């Protein structure tokens, strides 16, 4: 239990640190962010509104530490303020509408690339030094090195615009009312998600592949593998039941952590495919100078990151009996 308390307190400190950054950044910049924020406002700007906004942001008159405590309090009560762009809506609502799509995209992409990457990694390790290993393993890492902007734009240009195989934007056909029970709607969603999924997955496969391959290679030298071979077990049984099962352990926790990272990392894909996730919210917020939403975004993403890290910690303890004894 002590282990978890330590981790939890660390995550709490990390969250506070992110909130502190959010507090410092606008104050460290030249100019008054509140006035800048209202430059593109779509509603009438009265002095009262500016005053209310300042108060919401913690820009109250008073010493800096007082402002800081007011801001931290609003973060801890999850009151992120009001969006300038979509005026009466709160940042919570604006982000809340998008989080679902982002989670869906990130979750599917991570699961897909984990499955594919791990299977490829198992084969690469088992046939180490073969043609497959020497081409696929570094090849996937090279693909991973290509900026996501480029992959996504090329995918969009080739498959959506030139070949017209896939739609160019949105998560489902415009005008359709979402009905999560109807089969046609689900098919429509899958059709729209295909290219963004491909774009988000392609950069992750390499990491899972290499992790799995290296774990496997380390494990294949263990005595119990030699023993299994000596017993005359079939190759499939040795690879999947003996080696892969144990090699999977670090990958499973990496899976959880990469979920947290993927939500931030795939924003650019959502923007290019105009997918209604957090990325698109981000682009609109940038264009409208909606700093409240930008800051809320950072907090939400940090929370996701922390949550999935915590999940990784728990999975580790759950899956590795050696750790359980210690905890």
């Amino acid at each position, binding site marked *: 239990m002590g282990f978890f308390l330590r981790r939890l307190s660390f995550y709490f400190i990390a969250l506070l640190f992110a909130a502190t950054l959010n507090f410092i950044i606008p104050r460290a910049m030249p100019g008054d962010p509140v006035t800048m924020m209202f430059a593109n406002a779509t509603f009438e700007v009265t002095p009262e509104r500016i005053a209310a906004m300042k108060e919401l942001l913690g820009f109250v008159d008073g010493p800096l530490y007082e402002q800081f405590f007011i801001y931290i309090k609003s973060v801890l009560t999850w009151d992120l303020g009001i969006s300038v762009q979509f005026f009466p809506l709160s940042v919570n609502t604006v982000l809340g509408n998008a989080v679902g799509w982002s989670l869906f995209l990130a979750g599917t992409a991570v699961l897909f690339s984990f499955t594919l990457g791990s299977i490829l990694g198992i084969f690469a390790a088992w046939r180490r030094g073969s043609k497959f290993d020497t081409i696929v393993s570094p090849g996937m890492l090279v693909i991973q090195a290509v*900026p996501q902007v480029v992959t996504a734009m090329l995918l969009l240009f080739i498959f959506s615009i030139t070949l017209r195989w896939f739609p160019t934007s949105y998560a489902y056909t415009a005008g359709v009312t979402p009905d999560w029970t109807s089969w046609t709607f689900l098919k429509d969603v899958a059709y729209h998600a295909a290219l963004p999924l491909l774009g988000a997955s392609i950069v992750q496969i390499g990491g899972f592949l290499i992790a799995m391959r290296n774990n496997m290679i380390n494990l294949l030298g263990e005595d119990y593998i030699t023993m299994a071979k000596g017993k005359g077990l079939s190759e499939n049984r040795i690879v999947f039941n003996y080696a892969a099962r144990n090699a999977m352990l670090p990958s499973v926790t990496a899976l959880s952590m990469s979920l947290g990272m993927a939500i931030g990392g795939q924003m650019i894909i959502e923007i290019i495919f105009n997918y209604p996730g957090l990325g698109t919210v981000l682009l609109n917020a*940038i264009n409208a100078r909606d700093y409240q939403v930008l800051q809320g975004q950072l907090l939400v993403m940090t929370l996701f990151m922390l949550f999935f890290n915590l999940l990784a910690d728990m999975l580790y303890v759950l899956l590795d009996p050696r750790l359980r004894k210690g905890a």
Partner: protein
Amino acid sequence: MKGILNILKNNNKALFGSVILFMFIFVAVFAPLLTDHVPNKRTGNPHEYPSPIVKIAQASPDGWVAQNLADDKRTLLMSKKAEHVMGTSRMGRDIWAQLAYGARVSLGVGFGAGIVVCFLATVIGISAGYFGGRVDDILSAAMNVMLVIPQYPLLFVLAAFIGEAGPLTIALIIGFTSWAWGARVIRAQTMSISEKEFVKAAEVLGESRIRIIFVEILPNLISIVGASFIGSVMYAIMMEATISFLGLGDPGTISWGIMLYNVQTSSSMLIGAWWELLAPCMALITLSIGLAMLNFAVDEIANPQLRSNPGMKRFEKMQRADKKARAAHVKAEPPHFVGEKDLASGAK
């Protein structure tokens, strides 16, 4: 210098990577000599086709190129002068000039941020690993916090508040937000090195801590620092493109990210101006592949275990060399029976 040349000769990945990198550095440095147009002014009609395409299309109006690549008759007519190697953008600016001058910004931001990341990671990592105790506690906590704060949103928030960030600013904010991973690796390595006998010996001899760090520990970290440098350069080039693409960069500069931003905002993709999209994309892909290759090479040089079958390769090489030597040897030797034959013929 000779050592580096030797490495390049023996390691295909290193050779390939450095050729690509030097090609881009060459283009960036000599951009004014390599281009006929200025990058930030209108020098042609909007969306002119690249000149080779125009020439081929004019030479054979029914050929594949004219049918598929230059299928817009009006655009083809507009670009009949064919003086833009890679065509023009919607604003009528020369793409090749933008690409060449953009290489300066992309490489500059990449290497600038890479140096900052590398410096911070090394200083923080070595201090945490070598001094240990409270210094380690504080620095490790800082690393862990930086690692769980998501990079992309943090950079976006920073860039958005700075507003129209120039290349230098972008390089700095990338540098100051992404040192944590490198620092963690360097810390771990420093800790294992400081347990080694030669460091203990230096401590017993009473050498100063600074000297131990710079003379005993740092040289053993060079490979890790090098790998982290190349990794950071890759990451920074990618992030610069992303930040500029989002419109957070200074629209007055010319970089590959800004080129992509222009493609997106002027909907050149929908019009079918493939050259405007492909030019920065191909540049980014080639450069990333080159840097990835260099990264592999550094890994291999630093960690011989990663080499694919090093023993076998060396053996095969020796075998080949041996065969060659033998063949040459056999050839050089006069045929054995000539003498006898001569003798025989002479006897006749």
